[in-house]
């Protein structure tokens, strides 16, 4: 089993995407299927950008077994008061500055759920949000 932990810095646009890039490199080295890597990147990048946009920091745990890729994104941040609203396509709390950077269309979390084989979200207002995601290898 492969296991690695990364850290995403909230608010740091210079480094945004760097954790996803590292994960892509690892998945490519393991010779995983291109389509699967692409799906993993949708999840990793959406979640990483969310952390940069909204959280103070986020711990990303990657685990790869013979059956699946598991990713956990555990952030310290404002949390989400209404998860079902946040899971609605088009709903967004993004600021104008975030939208000017090409983000904040309210598609991120629904897209992560759609792309995952298994998806769980928990959030506590004032503490943070955690995403647990599985992508099965077969």
């Amino acid at each position, binding site marked *: 089993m492969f296991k690695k932990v990364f850290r995403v810095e909230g608010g740091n*646009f210079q480094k945004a*995407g760097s954790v996803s890039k590292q994960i*892509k490199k690892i998945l490519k080295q393991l010779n995983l299927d291109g389509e699967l890597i692409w799906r993993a990147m949708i999840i990793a*990048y959406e979640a990483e950008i969310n952390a940069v946009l909204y959280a103070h920091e986020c711990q990303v745990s990657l685990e790869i077994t013979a059956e699946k890729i598991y990713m956990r994104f555990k952030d310290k941040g404002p949390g989400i008061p209404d998860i079902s609203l946040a899971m609605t396509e088009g709903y967004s709390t993004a600021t104008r500055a975030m939208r000017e*950077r090409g*983000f904040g269309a309210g598609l991120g979390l629904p897209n992560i759920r759609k792309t995952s084989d298994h998806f769980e979200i928990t959030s506590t207002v004032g503490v943070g949000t955690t995403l647990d995601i599985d992508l099965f290898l077969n």
Partner: protein
Amino acid sequence: MLVSVKDLERDITTVHASDLISQVLASCSRGALWITGLLDQQIINTAELFDLSGVVFIGNRRPSADIIDTAVEEQIPVLVTKLSMFEACGLLYAEGLQPALRS
């Protein structure tokens, strides 16, 4: 063409046109050419992470040196056109290119 890459011999059959990175993430398929007016550092990261074939900046908008450096490093072809988004899309559509939609 601002950034060329070693392997330029690839067939491009689909195009995605938007200024929203969120939209690329939510609906664009692999291998597409991306036409955009958004000049942001994350454009190249996005193109690399999602296996896009290249980026075209419309309206003669010149990307910064940072964007070009990243594109060279990531081996993402970058082009600039004087055409507007409407004209660039119309031209490629007339040539038979298809929308980059997800199955």
